[in-house]
């Protein structure tokens, strides 16, 4: 499955090693600096994740080889704020991330991630900190995330997290990519358009 052309596919359970990315208000300019948006495709974006942060800080967690191959990101508040660039979650999905657990997300980022089949789970501040501490100390621990219940586990730690109900149900039913649904009853779309006075020129 290529992230550029997602096919309907139920997503109910995710598993993989974690990566603790600490910090609040991490914006999409930091996740994917704007110069990498000068392109006509999303190919290769995974090479540029946090590129400037990584260059500026040798100790940045994305430089730490212990977390190579991680599939679940653990973040703090307002992750993915700022620009609506889908290039940010595209880079993460292409780098192998399958889910994010955080204290809160920017709505646009959470929605863009959902369109790529990457759930962004919301958990409490204390639980996220415990998760980050555990994963930072034991990068080899396999985390799991259950879409239906919102349960996240890492070794013996189990926390409760949640997804917006519509996104959760979309993942479970395989309808997280809505284009086909939107085209399903197109006569109704035309009817709404016809009712709008500005469409018919007042």
């Amino acid at each position, binding site marked *: 499955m290529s992230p550029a052309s997602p096919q309907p596919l139920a997503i109910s359970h995710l598993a993989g090693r974690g990566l603790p990315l600490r910090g609040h208000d991490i914006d999409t300019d930091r996740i994917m600096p704007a110069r990498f948006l000068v392109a006509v495709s999303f190919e290769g974006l995974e090479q540029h994740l946090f590129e400037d942060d990584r260059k500026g800080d040798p100790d940045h967690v994305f430089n730490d080889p212990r977390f190579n191959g991680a599939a679940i990101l653990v973040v703090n508040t307002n992750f993915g704020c700022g620009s609506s660039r889908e290039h940010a979650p595209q880079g993460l999905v292409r780098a192998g991330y399958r889910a994010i657990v955080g204290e809160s997300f920017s709505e646009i980022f959470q929605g863009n991630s959902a369109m790529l089949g990457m759930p962004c789970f919301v958990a409490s501040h204390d639980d996220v900190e415990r998760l980050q501490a555990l994963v930072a100390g034991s990068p080899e621990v396999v985390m799991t995330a259950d879409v239906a219940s919102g349960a996240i586990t890492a070794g013996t730690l189990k926390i409760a997290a949640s997804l917006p109900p519509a996104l959760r149900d979309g993942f479970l039913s395989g309808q997280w990519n809505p284009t086909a649904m939107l085209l399903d009853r197109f006569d109704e779309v035309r009817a*709404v358009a016809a009712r709008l*006075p500005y469409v018919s020129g007042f």
Partner: protein
Amino acid sequence: MAATLFQKVWDAHAVRVLPSGQTQLFVGLHLVHEVTSPQAFDMLRQHGWKVAFPDRTFATADHIVPTKSQQRPFLDLMAEEMMGALERNCRGAGIRLWAPDNDNQGIVHVIGPELGLTQPGMTIACGDSHTSTHGALGAIAFGIGTSQVRDVLASQCLALDPLKVRRVEVSGRLSPGVFAKDVILTIIRRLGVHGGGGFAYEYGGSTLDAMTMDERMTICNMSIEGGARIGYVNPDDRTFEYLRGRPFAPKDGDAFEHAVAWWRQMASDANARYDDHVKFDAASIEPTVTWGINPGQSVAVTEPIDAEPDDEALAFMGFKPGSRVQGTKIDVAFIGSCTNGRLSDLEEAARIVKGHHVAPHVKALIVPGSRAVSRAAEARGLHEIFIAAGFEWRGAGCSMCLGMNPDKLEGRQVSASSSNRNFKGRQGSPTGRTLLMSPAMVAAAAIAGEVVDVREMLEGVPA
């Protein structure tokens, strides 16, 4: 039953409730630009889908457009490839495109209102988070990602969850030297950069009532910096007069009067209920500057920075806790962007600049938000004031708001900027530093060579 504009517009555009529980919402106006659309058109082709409503879709180029010379081919070959892709995609789908050689080209959020495409009561989507700007005319307008651009191209619809509505009321008169930019920075500072999560912001109150459309656009533009993907102002007579006679507005006469009647009806009812309500006093707002790495980290220019000593933003910016932004030496002054690149922004800046000269160590740019803004400014002789003062007078585009074109900060340069984001690396240098402020404050900083209180320069300047 009494309702808000948000609810009325949502209901008028709701197609059906999808099996997921989300609403299928019809998009009345889809705006497209070169950065977030090529992949969407590719996805459409892969699936064999056609653009459903090409006549409700309009395109321009802004992010990658060089502002020194807009001659084709662009020197940056990838930028040229993006431009070519946009031209081919629009031509293939029958979408109207205003390329850099067209008189209507400009930043997508400047040209929408300017051409009368943006109208009250519409739903508007664009693959850019500053789409909230269009809410200034009483539209429900929001930024979307590229997969959603694909959805709108294919179906003219989006699958969305409704938002709550927070009434943000600002009352009273702004003091001289205080502008819409200071108001929105103050709102974001108090409500927080994530405070608008789950909400659409409805801005109102006597301060908003008295504002020009340009000023309302500045306010709505930065809603997303407060975490609200939608911000709007209820349409009023000022909105209607702004639209009258614009190329894509309803034709003057019966059509326009019918439109005004519908637009009025879409405004929030007086007794509408809000999910939250916050109030601001305009008289207490001062010229505001950011000191940190998100737009909520701001202070009045005369005020000390109120950060914790270990705040990473202080270290990045090179400020000490308790110090002031006032007096900070700047290297670059940038006036432009979808936040503050309109005619009235340039007029305010010119008032400050007239008779002065840019400090010798400062590189100063004026980048009109559109070719129409540029023409209007030139007709008033503003470009001559700026050029005489040592500013560079550039062509229309996003320019130094973000590092996607040749206008970039270098190294640790400090920029006084009328744009919207002070994120690390935002202006094109990973270590560059951005101080957000009003265009008048940027103009004053350009002349002084350091951040100053614009009110000191306003003494003796005719209003």
